[in-house]
């Protein structure tokens, strides 16, 4: 019978191919062969682990506040000063690069002596920054 993956050298020593060596090692280590059920379970566990790692990675990368939000915060200071100086108490929306700055002006709890000015910075559908100020109407 042909013994595949096994040769006898001139000096009498035996030489084995890599798969044959691995087979011998597996036999020596007493590693059982996997059933399909075990393979499915191991594949599932590995997939879950990779999924968790990908989720953590995406969240870490996405947690960074965009630079546009910091720029918008600077613009809000300027807008608030303009509102106070020019008494321009009205709601408006300003687009700046990839951000939208929304200025909402309302009376504070119905008190007509105080305005409540709310600024919101949106990037896409997410609101990244909100700040609220109270300004006297006089």
């Amino acid at each position, binding site marked *: 019978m042909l013994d595949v993956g096994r040769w006898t050298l001139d000096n009498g020593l035996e030489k084995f191919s890599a798969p044959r060596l691995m087979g011998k090692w597996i036999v020596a280590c007493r590693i059982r062969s996997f059933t399909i059920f075990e393979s499915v379970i191991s594949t599932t566990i590995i997939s879950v682990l990779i999924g968790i790692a990908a989720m953590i990675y995406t969240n870490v990368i996405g947690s*960074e506040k965009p630079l546009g939000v910091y720029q918008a915060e600077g613009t809000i200071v300027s807008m608030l000063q303009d509102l106070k100086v020019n008494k321009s108490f009205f709601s408006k929306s300003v687009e700046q690069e990839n951000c939208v700055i929304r200025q909402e002006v309302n009376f504070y709890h119905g008190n007509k002596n105080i305005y409540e000015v709310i600024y919101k910075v949106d990037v896409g559908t997410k609101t990244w920054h909100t700040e609220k100020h109270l300004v006297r109407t006089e």
Partner: protein
Amino acid sequence: MDLLAGMAITGVVIGAVFHLSTTVTGRYHALQFSRLELNDLVIFSATLCQAIQVAEEIREVPGGFELISENTTAIFKKKEETLLMMTNEGSVSALKNIEQISLERLNEPAGASAQNESTPVEGIHVSCLVLNQHTELHFYKEYSPSGKINHYLVNEFEN
């Protein structure tokens, strides 16, 4: 043949792992760099905002501005592309990559030429480069209405 196949598979696996680790390390360093730059910006903004609120008056000095309060004085000066904060305790670099600092005096529109050098500063506009993008920071000192009127009257008498 088996040896060659083994070498090829091992090479592909090692290459994939190396590429993955290089990509992740690169992203990590980029994230760390941007985080540090943004931290500098936020710390500077918070520090200056707090200092302006505490200060009684802001005056213009050559190359910058001075925050005057009862016991302490802080001078912010632009030196090359760095904004230095000089206090009694020494000077520190407040923010790097500064492009321009413009000041808005009390009762005067922004960019108007100064009628009186002693006029207090109401607004400070700092433009700088953050992550290679042009960024504007604005700071305003809220003087009391009586202070504004008194200053206007003083100027009226002087003129």
